């Protein structure tokens, strides 16, 4: 029987994932299965949008009284035992589900539940609330979950191309009318018409805008989202879409190596400057290779470039404010 060790996700551990406000930086593989523990608190609150409008959200928070949208990323290893406690601080029922891995079932308002499961397939997953679908999920109850191949620090799946750094890009669109209906425990009656667009819960704040450069507000400088690297710092990006809209994810500076779509390993790896990300829980994995921009003359290995969705309505907030949407920046250092 393999030796087991208890790890608490969310804390930098000698042998576990480095999770926290700075995002996932590296992963140290283990030769043994561990038990990974995490507690999520289902909370509610308001988030101020770029145009000053406060919008209601619900989220899986790592602290008893905070609001986190998306919830903190988790990373585990194939064969680990994952034990997650969900504390529902709200008055409505919610759940915690990862398709193909676990479903908590209904957790009534004011109650808690601990679920345990053992993921056996490496890959990128969305955790989310499957109740009142899709409203609870779109209102913020979602987050990223990754399963690393056993013993691997640098592959998405066995024999995949290797990477050095990994990130989650969780995209979402927000229709305040829907969020407000959830707040008032009503089913939204209007067609989904998003007005705000986020990556890892934040939107862009271009130079000159209030909050520009503040990683707590500005998606261009949020270390969970922005790519920083030198040539050769190949970065795995796990793109997840709890939102409703199908997106076009576009990187400048480098083509991406397109590895998977919705959990399926692609037959060939295509090099793309645009990859699709399906709505309603779509998943796309790519590697951004951090190669010297190939068309620069003279050649260069430094510079700053954007990543943005190319369905450009997503680059707005409140019907205008271009560059205050779902985007981040890529820094060749």
């Amino acid at each position, binding site marked *: 029987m393999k030796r087991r060790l208890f790890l608490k996700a969310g804390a930098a551990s000698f042998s576990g994932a480095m999770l926290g406000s700075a995002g996932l930086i590296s992963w140290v593989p283990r030769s043994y299965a561990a038990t990974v523990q995490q507690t999520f608190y289902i909370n509610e609150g308001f988030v101020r949008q770029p145009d000053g409008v406060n919008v209601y959200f619900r989220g899986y928070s790592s602290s008893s009284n905070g609001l986190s949208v998306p919830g903190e990323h988790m990373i585990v290893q194939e064969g680990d035992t994952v034990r997650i406690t969900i504390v529902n601080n709200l008055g409505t029922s919610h759940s915690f589900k990862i398709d193909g891995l676990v479903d908590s079932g209904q957790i009534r308002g004011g109650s808690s539940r601990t679920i345990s499961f053992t993921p056996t397939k490496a890959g990128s997953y969305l955790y989310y609330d499957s109740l009142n679908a899709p409203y609870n999920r779109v209102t913020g109850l979602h987050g990223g979950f990754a399963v690393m191949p056993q013993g691997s620090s640098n592959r998405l799946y066995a024999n995949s191309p290797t990477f050095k750094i990994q990130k989650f890009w969780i995209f979402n669109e927000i229709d305040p009318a829907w969020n407000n209906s959830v707040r008032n425990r009503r089913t939204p009656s209007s067609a989904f018409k998003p007005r705000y667009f986020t990556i890892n819960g934040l939107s862009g704040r271009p130079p000159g805008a209030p909050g520009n450069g503040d990683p707590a507000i500005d998606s261009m400088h949020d270390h969970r989202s922005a790519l920083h690297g030198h040539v050769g710092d190949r970065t795995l990006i796990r793109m997840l879409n709890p939102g409703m809209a199908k997106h076009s994810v*576009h990187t*400048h500076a480098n*083509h991406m190596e397109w590895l998977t779509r919705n959990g399926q390993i692609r037959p060939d*790896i*295509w090099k793309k400057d*645009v990859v699709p990300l399906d709505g309603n829980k779509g998943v796309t994995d790519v590697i951004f290779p951090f190669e010297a921009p190939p068309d620069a*003359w003279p050649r260069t290995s430094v510079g700053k470039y954007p990543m943005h969705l190319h369905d450009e309505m997503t680059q*707005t907030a409140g019907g205008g404010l271009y560059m205050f949407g779902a985007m981040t920046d890529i820094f060749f250092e």
Partner: protein
Amino acid sequence: MGRRRRSRSTSTTTTTTTTTTSSMGGGGMDGGGGGGGGMGSACYVYPVNNASVPPLVSNPDVVIQRGIDMNIPMTMDDGRTVTMWGFSDTAGGGGMGGGGMGSATFPSAPIRVRQGQICHTRLNVGMMMFHTIHHHGIEPEYRSDGVGHLSWDVNGTYTYQWRPAHAGTYFYHCHTNTVLHAEMGMYGALIVDPPSGPGRAFEGGPSYDLEAIWAVDEIDSSWHRLGWDAGTCGGDVGLNDLNPDYFVISGVDGAQSALTHQAVAVTMSRGQRLLVRYICAGYLPQTIHFGGLTAQVVASDGRPLPRSIQVTQLDAVSAERYDCIIQPTRRGVHTIEIDIKHWVTGAVLGTARTRITVV
């Protein structure tokens, strides 16, 4: 765009470019400058910082010149006229009004260069506004990437320098208030031929006898009353909500005209090899149906596929490009249909149609 070319009878690809040996050393900026942090009522536009402009080589292989045209009337099949914006081809002084004006088409004139050429794209924005050119899929030095918040927007003249390393299908578009400017039509095809020139999709790749460039786009005519800086300072101008009422192929209304328009529809002989350069130029998801023909997809986004794939239809999202070889063996008329779909529901909002006639 949309122009078909018989490669074997084509000896040059410089119809939209000029070769020059004039010196442009010491920086790409020779005019304009813009206002501090904005111009007019615009917000979050970034004038060129002359001190940071990189030097240019003095002897580029190709110089492409583009101005701005904010008044391109497009008459739709229903008789309505919709105003488009675009880049005018100002090479040789043609169409230049001294202020970056000039007569443009929708889409803008193609840029066609060869792999390995050092290219200068000289943009002249002479009016009280800002624009850029982003060569989509081309990955240059960041100050030649045309992204305002990371370098600058252009008012006056600015030259982008780039040297394409990979043959294939790209496009260029404005990256200032992009959500509006690209929807207004400020884009054109960008084709990088292999060093040997047209006739092959890429070096060592499949040959072709004729070529079609299909840039498929949707138009929300209600956006076409907005000013260039609409929404940049805030306020709800509706740019989150695209409700298209026209669906076009390379600037030709896909309701009816594109079925027969010589810039889009293809007539070819049995056994000939057609290269379709399909550009998803709109914002919404598309599916192209090849009308009963089989297409061999050989490249996407300017990169050869490791193994080509055979398809009868193909999904695409905004800004994807697919290079497809079609070699019909029988006479026939094939209606190509491109469905433009709602980004949330997937419902087909409209269909643009053209035709491949095999004789």
